[in-house]
């Protein structure tokens, strides 16, 4: 079977073609090894980094999953992110939930946050 993907690993956006015959997976169109890896994952188990924001006391805190979660789990992850409330100071990179997808992927803050800070505008 042959499938086409646009690689999302970098802005180049390579047009990837994956051919599978049950046993072997063959990738063409990739500029770099990351593209091959991405295409292989897309035909077996597609994964994505999820970014969002979590409500702090007085402002929103931007967050991301450290590593990718299964694409099929994205909305479950979002549901858990929405339920989070943070009322303490947070450092950039601090883990806000050690396992956001039920498979051990942590959710981390992507900016520092002080309880008292306003929305920063």
């Amino acid at each position, binding site marked *: 079977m042959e499938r086409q993907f646009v690689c999302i690993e970098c802005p180049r956006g390579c047009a990837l073609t994956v051919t599978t015959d049950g046993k072997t997976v063959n990738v063409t169109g990739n500029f770099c090894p990351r593209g091959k890896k991405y295409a292989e994952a897309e035909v077996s188990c597609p994964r994505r980094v999820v970014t969002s*924001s979590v*409500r702090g006391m007085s402002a929103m805190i931007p967050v991301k999953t450290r590593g990718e979660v299964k694409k099929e789990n994205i909305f479950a992850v979002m549901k858990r992110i*929405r339920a989070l409330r943070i009322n303490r100071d947070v450092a950039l990179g601090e883990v806000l939930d050690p396992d956001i997808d039920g498979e051990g992927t942590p959710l981390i803050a992507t900016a520092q946050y002080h309880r008292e800070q306003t929305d920063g*505008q």
Partner: protein
Amino acid sequence: MKTIDVAVIGGGVVGALTARELRKYHIDVAVLEAADDVAAGASRANSGIVHAGFDAPVGSLKAKYNVLGNALMAGVCAELGVPFSRNGSLVVARGAEEEAQLQVLLERGRQNGVPDLEIIGRDRLLELEPHMADGVTAALHAPTGGIVCPYGLTIAAMGNAMDNGARLFTGFEVASAQQTKDGWLLRSATGQEIAARIVVNCAGAGAEYVASLFGDAFFHIGLRRGEYMLLDRAAGDFASHTVFSVPTKAGKGVLVTPTVDGNLLIGPTSVEDEVYSTAVRRPAFGEIKEKASWMLRDIPFGQVITSFAGERAYCDRHDFILEWGKENVFHAAGIESPGLTSSLAIAREIAGQLAKRLGAAENKDFSPFRRSMHWLKELSEAEKNAVIARDPAYGRIVCRCEEVSLGEIRDAIRQNPPARTLDGVKLRTRAGMGRCQSGFCQPNVFHELMKECGLRAEEVTKNGGNSYIITGGEL
């Protein structure tokens, strides 16, 4: 319930100025406005022209109040701190047939009492407006023509009336009127009640309906929509006069005018409506462009920042209705163009008649002055620094395109008539009216409204009613 002297129905320019004129007497007045802010109808979306007075038929009320109102406009704008400019009007003609029309307008203007009218040839015209289109041969020049900010005048008049004791009820849509022994009991759609000895109907597009609540049915209101294109301030000096064209067989033209805020305004079209609408039709853009090009060439339409439409009420008599109906009900209806120009003269006429009927004495405490909406911009740097030292919020810029400070936004929310919506803040401060059209400042104004008015995010509106900004909830 206490019966007040006068209830003015409608917070447009005529209603607001009428309330203000009434406060020059010892007359207790309340303005009832159906929308959530004043200047919600035609007073918000019109050409902002102070007409010289050559258009209206000789002997009409329009002619009378236009010429009177034109002479009064500079004074009231100075008192209220509203930008006004006597930039002069030009009616341009293309060829002999249209030039004959100019003669008709000139003669009519002279009979109406318009001063300083003259017909000028192309050479003189090009000195006044270098971008005249090739076919234009002559023009009627009316140096007393001017421009004013229509909603600015309405807001300032209402604010000044309130500062002098008038009251404003927004969201008060009069649903019924009941005659009582000493006047009328007015009930709103939401059940609020006001009792007044005299009622003035300044309801604009709703004037016929309001009249019917009192049992008056001697005039019919029609709706005519005018669509406009507004250009960036970078295009504001493209024309310095208000330029009209002679009405021709091809129809009524549009006008091209600078605004007092320095933009260039082009329009209006003219669309007869059955139902009230402020939508811009798809063909409007082409129509406006074509008609404007009859008069001026190379108009920089690439610099359009927005387009809008206003719905104007006109009367089947094609003149203003200024008369008593049922007992103690005065109708100021069908105030179509030149209604804005005429508004103060009309308001004075109404207040005079009501004061006489009420036997009201002059109010010696009345102060006609209101701080200019642009007071901060008019100060020198040293004066601005003194203001900022007293209140640092005046140093904090929120709207970058129009350079509006947080202090000015708070003033708009705190002062009479208080802004309760994003558009309310915009009309009072110009925050969001610039080239980015509120892209940057809207969320910040939004939060200032929440803070100042104690609103939740989902309660803030663009311009009242159900015009909610946030309808998807909180994250």
